[in-house]
């Protein structure tokens, strides 16, 4: 009964606002299109070794798009299982390219990797999602989302029917992933969640989802392989996977004020380009995908309200009272001397203390003496002592 009343009230309110004027429904629309106030992204690359360069490039290109569209580093959890930019086999160190002929360096110069190398495990991934991290974990390694957060989760690596391989030694199954999302929903750790996976047989990973407000995209169906895009002959490995390559091209056209919606995202990389058939799942999602903006998940468009009310604190003649107690005295602050330059420049050569000769010299002289006395006889010893 109460929800019927709520629906009636909402429709009445919306109808009234339509009659009121042009800007009121526009404002209501803008404010109420999506219920989120902040955005988070969890980007995971699960493979290591040089020949899996393309998985790191996949993750970094999504990271780059997400940062460009406005999500700050403090709201991104980036997990890279291996370091490709500073790998010994990288002919161009400190770069990770996504297009051949080194057109686009997705590594950039302000990458912030939160989980690196062997820290990328199934356990850590599930801990990040469910929030069950040890108390000493720093803020940058936590997913501090609330009930009005939209979260983007991107996984890439080698996968199979119902599992995704982490680091060549363990797997996460689709049941565990679905359970983790259900735990997130129980604690209302997300408002809406977009799950993208670029692996072989990726569609199997979202088969078992059962929590509300989840939308999932995968690069290939069960039984199909996701293929890589193009190798670069100078670097010697495949640079990107096909699905993420075309996803990156699609996202490069999106700017923070763009009105592109999810139906456009579903059309990215058709079978002619991708060779595999990308799939998506929207039955658990409450809103219609056509009304979900790309920037709802990939960007961070804040809702703002003008501050109408202020409090009048300017009472003339009354000095500011101290709440804490006696006033603080202004002490002149100076930097601590961290590098004693004067000492270093005007240094006198240090007096070296005398040490008795160490083992090598002793051994050498002993050898010389032995040889001498062996050759010329022991009777010469009296000349020494």
């Amino acid at each position: 009964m109460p929800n019927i009343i709520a629906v009636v009230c909402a429709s009445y309110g919306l109808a009234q606002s339509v009659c009121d004027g042009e800007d009121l429904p526009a404002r209501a629309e803008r404010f109420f299109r999506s219920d989120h106030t902040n955005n988070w992204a969890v980007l995971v690359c699960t493979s290591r070794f040089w020949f899996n360069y393309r998985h790191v490039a996949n993750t970094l290109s999504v990271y780059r798009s997400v940062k460009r569209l406005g999500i700050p580093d403090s709201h991104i959890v980036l997990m890279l299982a291996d370091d490709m930019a500073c790998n010994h086999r990288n002919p161009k160190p400190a770069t990770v390219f996504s297009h051949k002929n080194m057109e686009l360096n997705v590594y950039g110069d302000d990458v912030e990797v939160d989980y690196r190398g062997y820290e990328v495990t199934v356990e850590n991934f599930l801990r990040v999602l469910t929030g069950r991290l040890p108390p000493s974990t720093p803020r940058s390694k936590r997913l501090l989302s609330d009930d009005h957060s939209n979260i983007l989760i991107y996984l890439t690596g080698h996968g199979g029917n119902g599992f995704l391989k982490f680091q060549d030694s363990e797997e996460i199954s689709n049941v565990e992933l679905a359970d983790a999302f259900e735990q997130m929903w129980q604690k209302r750790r997300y408002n809406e969640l977009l799950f993208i996976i670029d692996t072989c047989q990726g569609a199997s990973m979202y088969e078992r989802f059962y929590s509300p407000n989840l939308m999932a995209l995968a690069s290939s169906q069960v039984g199909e392989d996701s293929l890589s895009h193009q190798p670069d002959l100078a670097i010697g490995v495949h640079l990107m996977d096909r699905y993420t390559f075309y996803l990156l091209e699609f996202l490069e056209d999106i700017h923070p004020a763009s009105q592109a919606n999810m139906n456009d995202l579903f059309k990215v990389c058709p079978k002619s380009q991708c060779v595999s058939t990308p799939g998506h799942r929207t039955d658990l999602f409450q809103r219609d995908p056509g009304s979900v903006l790309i920037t709802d998940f990939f960007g961070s468009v804040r809702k703002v309200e003008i501050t109408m009310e202020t409090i009048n604190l300017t009472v003339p003649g009354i000095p500011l009272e101290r709440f804490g107690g006696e006033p603080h005295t202004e002490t002149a602050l100076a930097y601590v001397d961290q590098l004693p330059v004067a000492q270093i420049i005007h240094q006198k050569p240090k007096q070296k203390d005398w040490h008795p000769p160490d083992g090598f010299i002793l051994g050498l002289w002993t050898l010389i003496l032995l040889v001498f006395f062996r050759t010329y006889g022991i009777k010469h010893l009296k000349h020494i002592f």
Partner: protein
Amino acid sequence: MAAVEVEKQRGRSAAVAIAALVIAAGIPLWWKTTETYRAWLPAARISELEALQLELRVEVEVVFARGTLSPEQQKKVPASRMREQQQQVDDKTGLKFTYETRFRTATVMEEDALNQPTAAEADHALHTLTETSCGSVVIYIIPEASALLPQDMRVYVGRSRTALLRSQVASVVGAGLPEVLAALDPQMEQVLQTMSFNHQDVTAALTDRLRPGLSTRDSLADSMRAFKSSPGYEITFSLLNPDPKHHQLHWDVEAALDAYIYPLLHKMAPVANFSVDSQILYYAVLGVNPRYDASASAYTLSADSLAHVINPVEARLGSNAASSNPVLNFLLYVPDSLHSPLIIRNDQKQEVASNAFHSPRWGGIMVYNVDGAYGNDTQFPVDIAIDMSRVMGVFLSQLRLMLGFQQTGAPPGFVLEAAGREGVAEWELDRLLWSRSVENVATASASITSLAQLLDQIANIVINDNIAQQVASAVTALQAAVAELEAGNLALALEHSREAISASERAFFDPSLLHLLYFPDDQKFAIYIPLFLPMCVPILLSLLKIFREVQQHRAEKRAKRD
């Protein structure tokens, strides 16, 4: 022949002995060593929490001033009355609002206080007379002809928990007290809805327990703006100076915080802990180019572009936060000399008086123009002292919104006294405490029930003793909070609800509760069969053989007898 028989007998007894050992000692040993440690949880009390029946009780005191009641009506006072309202929010959650009202006449000192010239002074005088407990409301009924309120206003709500209500019931001779009370009821109801909880707030606070889509759009906007209940908050005040070459800014933020912000935070101490810091950023620019408007001869930021201002700035903001508490940012932006003055325009292209905007669950930004402080030919950089009282006025109102104090939508005929220097009125704080207590209770009960469900479903999770202890203490604190809400002790209820929510969060998010290993049944068989099958097959076969031999022996014996 006898030797073979003895051999066979020995073989049989050996097989039986081995089988007995395996069954009697082996299986219990294997069971014991492979079970997971699960401490006992109070499952019965947890299942009670699933169906939550909350009762909120307000103690209302209605004081009749001289001139509002006729002498016969006055004789019937003092009286008391209890009114209940039931609301079933969904099939598992029910609400009951109880208003316990006591009626009395005013004392001599209160009459003196009501004789003050203005309502504000009367309210101040009344406040010094009585001590009201947290959560209660006192309404003074003043005669119709009283000059305390302006003509068209009926109610005055003061800074503490008192309200002045102008009686519209002329003291008709012959009308009994119940009629007077009945006539006052709708007005009192309105006063209570404003000063104490109202149904929308409480329902909005229960969203954690409810299915999605149940709340209305207005309450959604309010719930989106304010932070959810958390044990602590981090507040950062930042000064953004994009033009240090021209402007040398001085802001005495420590004194301003001491004077304006800390009183509010001190009053909110029962709700949460606050940690405040401040910083100055140089060469920090807004991400949006303002447009020059010749008619106003100023640069303008339209309402649409405001949404894109925050992200580039946020990337540069440092944060001192070491805990996982939510962070509120308040930014003061002083435009550079090339883009001064900078004004914000709203949707209707009008100038905004405060020149500030805020983002729900993030914080606020205020633009402070300093172009009036110097002329064209002064020597740069110019020393400018920022007027902190103006700035803090805006930040204080934004902070109130972020913390959950709703925008004062005064019903018609009401005069709500502005909070002023103290930051928040007592009754506003009470309203927040009501919704916070209910929110804490709802969240804690939802956490505990879902944790119990999770632990039930997955038999592989180890439940340590500390988790069981946290759950038990959370359940106890939760029941205490509900009991205190029923009794009407708001402060104690809030304390217990805070205990409950912190214990339940600690139990739910304990790092040891990670269900990492998913064992499908076929994997379990794949592990156990190679271990147990080679051992069990000979034992079973020999037992079968013995059984068949015994059967044969018995059949022979029966044949022999017959």
